């Protein structure tokens, strides 16, 4: 059984092509800029079986075209690695492309290994390279995240890296340079994506009664985003803006 927050049947930003996006409930990070705080709690959501999900996926398979498929996002999908591994194994057996949109912030255990063995694409959100900064942003160390990237590299799993660009937090030249330089020798990093910070999730905090810590932080300007892209391109050949 998987604890599902919601399903987006026409995902166009979570991997290649048209995607069935499964937002799983529960996350242990508390990213300051999280735009889905309603997916953080480890309770709530709807319990769904692998078969139920597969049935829903099959109904939209014809829309996937050559590139599309299923993406597990969240929340943090690897918190439910055991059941998700079964789902991905089933989907792959049916010829469906699988993508995992994760923060990679867990120690890799047998369940995660099994899950990754049936994952075509890992979309890894590396929030900061500096451990202290990472803790400040998310409440957790980045040690597991970087180990996760190493594991995928070793196993030859295609990776898309993601970086949320938050003015004053993750947009310094020094940080962006270090971030891209760190991954420049990764053979399996296919692209990096910049996600410009936005405030559209702010109203959810109000609704949930959680203080919004980035109150007053403005989204990056067009120029700031272009600048970040240029910096990342110094080390990484394919940089996209989401």
């Amino acid at each position: 059984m998987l604890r599902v927050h919601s399903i987006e049947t026409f995902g166009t930003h979570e991997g290649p092509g048209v995607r069935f996006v499964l937002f799983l409930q529960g996350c242990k990070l508390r990213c300051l800029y999280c735009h889905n705080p309603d997916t953080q709690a480890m309770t709530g959501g709807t319990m769904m079986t692998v078969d139920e999900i597969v049935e829903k996926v099959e109904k939209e398979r014809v829309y996937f075209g050559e590139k599309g498929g299923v993406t597990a996002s969240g929340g943090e999908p690897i918190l439910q690695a055991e059941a998700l591994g079964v789902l991905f194994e089933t989907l792959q057996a049916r010829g469906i492309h699988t993508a995992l949109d994760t923060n990679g912030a867990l120690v890799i255990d047998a369940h995660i290994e099994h899950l990754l063995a049936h994952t075509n694409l890992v979309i890894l959100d590396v929030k900061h390279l500096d451990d202290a900064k990472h803790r400040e942003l998310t409440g957790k160390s980045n040690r597991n995240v970087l180990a996760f990237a190493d594991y995928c590299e070793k196993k030859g799993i295609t990776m898309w890296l993601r970086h949320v660009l938050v003015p004053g937090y993750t947009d310094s030249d020094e940080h962006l340079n270090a971030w891209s330089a760190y991954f420049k020798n990764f053979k399996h990093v296919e692209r990096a994506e910049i996600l410009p910070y936005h405030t559209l999730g702010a109203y959810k905090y109000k609704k949930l009664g959680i203080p919004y810590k980035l109150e007053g932080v403005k989204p990056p300007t067009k120029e700031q985003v272009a600048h970040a892209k240029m910096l990342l391109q110094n080390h990484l050949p394919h940089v996209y803006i989401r």
Partner: protein
Amino acid sequence: MKSSSNKSQSTTKAHHSIDVRDFIHTHISSYDGDASFLVGPSPKTKALQAVVTKLMQEEKKKGGVLDVDTHTISQINSHKAGYIQKQDEVVVGLQTDAPLKRGVKPFGGVRIVEKACKEYGYTLDPAIVDMCTKYRKTHNDGVFDAYTKEMRMLRSLGILTGLPDNYARGRIIGDYRRVALYGIDALIAQKEQDKDNITGDMTDDTIRVREEVSEQIKALSMMKKMAQEYGFDISRPAQNAREAVQWTYFAYLAALKEHDGAAMSLGNVSSFFDVYIEKDMKEGKLTEEEAQELVDQFVLKLRLIRHLRMSEYNALFAGDPTWLTEAIGGAWCDGRHKVTKTAYRFLQTLYNLGPSPEPNLTVLWSKHLPMAFKKFAAKVSIDTSSIQYENDDVMREACGYDDYGISCCVSLLKTGKHMQFFGARCNIVKALLMVINGGRDEVEGVQVMANVPELKGEYLDYDAIYPKFKEALAYLAYHYVNTMNVIHYMHDKYYYERAQMALLDTHLERVMAFGIAGLSIVADSLSAIKYARVRPVRDERGIATAYEVEGDYPKYGNDDDRVDAIAKEVVSFFNAELHKHKIYRNAQATLSVLTITSNVVYGKHTGATPDGRPAFAPFAPGANPMHGRDTSGAIASLNSVAKLDYAQARDGISNTFSIVPRALGADGGEQVDNLVSLLSGYFAKRAHHLNVNVFNKELLEKAMQHPEEYPQLTIRVSGYAVHFANLSREQQQEVLNRTFFESM
């Protein structure tokens, strides 16, 4: 004689078989390449466009109507030649003697014309009023002479709505290409021969057809004269591309001069034009610039088509629409696709002349279409929001024919072989409410249906209501068919479309196109009654004026069979009921799930509904799920609509899809690919139609100013979806900024 070459047609001999389809099928040059050959507008086109833009601005400034000729009843030969700016026009011809000047066509109903004139500050010539009240009967008078009390009641309560009983029914598509391929003289000869063959017992039917064919022959002669006024001899076939476009346009213009039908669509002319264009280009007589100029100027002419209508009509259809629908693309029954370079050239007009709802460019989507064309169409959609898509594979299979046009928005007509009686719509939500209110209308309280028992119990009971609802639908279907029979009998009698009918086969198939409005509300209401608990709140008359819904229920638009099956069954049931009755001139009943833009007006006449919709709130358009209830993403929503069976709704199932560019993908390439995937998937599910709106910045700004008018506008960013109207102003501004981020 089959037409193997357009040069061999210069004969006045009768054609044993008029067969435009065969001509195109034999000569078409299918094109698999991309859009790189296309060119921009020519200097002449630009000059004309400048004049037209200015005229349209003046028209707007004057409240929507630039000028009206109130003294002349518009007919094929009623007006002298008119031009926009003669030296720049490569295609000529206007409805009256000046651009945007509207003619009066009183034979549908003179009071409507009188009122329309008055609303725009004009007075209809009293001589015309006199003629149409004292000496000549109009269609409208005929209908009301024959209507029963019941028909009048259903009409005035808004249960049967938009009936073509006081205006031209439209919806007929003449095969305008015939004039170019054969020339008028050959068409007259064919009709003369047809007439000679209509003999035997002089029954009502036979006499009528003989009279009609005579009228058609007159119209053909009048077309010839109209062309002469512009200096062209269309008695002979067109000899080159320019003539082919010009001859076809003259034929269409003749129809538009005589009638102002709700929708007067063009058919499928682009592949026909392409045969001539290709030939001229091969012979070195035409350049790409000249070919595009022809298409641009033809389309520019179509954009100038105007009808004089009451503001009430314009409110119903949101604007001043003409539905000049041109079907582009599709495939032949043998599997070859019909995409030509001219298909591209037609779509290119949306760049060369700017986006426009008219002509209503409709891409016939088929699995056989070349990928390059699918991508180009998707790109044009994203850039202009001016294309709709229809499932050619499903339609071709259903009608067994591959040369058809789309009438209005979604209605298939085999070109030259089909004639349609337009049937407007029936509000089936009111049928459901009648059942809940003992057969009474939920707004006026008057008794409509007899023998509907008052419901017992605090909560609505599905098992009691559903069978009664079917009885109500059966009752409506019977009266709906009868009403249509009266209308079309009178329309044929008093306002016959001789110009269009002259360009159809004399012996043809007739369809009567019925329609339903409010399908999603009916499905959700029945689902609420079945799966949640619905308590009606009744007023002192015992009429339910509000409903309290306890608990949740499956909603149409989420790919949930529990409710989607209800929607599907309602459509099939109503369609079957329509087929039980005798229809005028043995027409086949067809059914549409289509409200176009009139969903707001339907809502205004309909009380509260058991799905929780408040009284007088808008309906969802066409077969769309109710806005805000399709919460599982676009594909789940599309899948629900795709379940409706085209075989049970042969007049079409309309769905409108609105999205911002960013929600289609991060950059232009991704957006095009994802839209192609979306369309391919939707049509592989055997869905019928999709209107694609990709909102531009201008529209989002309008939505900020009037959020109430855009309740459906959904903004999707990574992993996040919200209704635009629910965001704060500041957030809307941010969406606006983000949405148009991709220029980076």
